[in-house]
């Protein structure tokens, strides 16, 4: 039973990551394209990690919680990297519009 729940959780997380990648490929401008991958980094990662916790807790019949480390890492690092990246993109766009007549 818990195996099936874990597999379904992992599948839902993979679906979120896939939809995020489709959005990354299909949207038109960079500032639109920043949004979709965050689906994979937040809810996709959270669901896959929840599936991992459920499966290994049932397999080893003790609470397995070390997946929380990855969850904390992704929660802290994703906003930092994307804000740095968007600031770099804004800087580059401004520089291009200044140099072009």
């Amino acid at each position, binding site marked *: 039973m818990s195996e099936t729940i874990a597999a379904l959780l992992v599948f839902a997380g*993979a679906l979120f990551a896939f939809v995020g990648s489709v959005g*990354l490929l299909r949207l038109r401008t960079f500032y639109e394209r920043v949004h979709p991958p965050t689906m994979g980094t937040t809810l996709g990662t959270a669901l896959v990690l929840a599936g991992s916790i459920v499966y290994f807790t049932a397999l080893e019949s003790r609470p397995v919680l070390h997946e929380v480390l990855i969850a904390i890492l992704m929660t802290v690092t994703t906003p930092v990297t994307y804000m740095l990246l968007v600031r770099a993109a804004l*800087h580059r766009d401004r520089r291009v519009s200044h140099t072009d007549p």
Partner: protein
Amino acid sequence: MSLFTSVLLGAQMLLGLAMLLALLRLLRGPRAQDRVLALDTLYVNGMLLVLALGIRQGTTLYFEAALVIGMLGFVSTAALAKFLLRGEVIE
């Protein structure tokens, strides 16, 4: 093949397809910031793929690999964004 294995195989296929789409954006993506964003997405999808592989094999060995992939993805994306912003990584 049981339900567990087949659903996990489907999840792995989805994640592989997601990596492929991110790779397409990495190859196509008109400017450097698009490529950096695609590289970050590729890292995250690869980390999820390694986690799904670990669940399917039933060992916690792959967890450390996923953690290292996540940390390296953060550091490389932050360094590349800093490079795009300033023209050098360490100043």
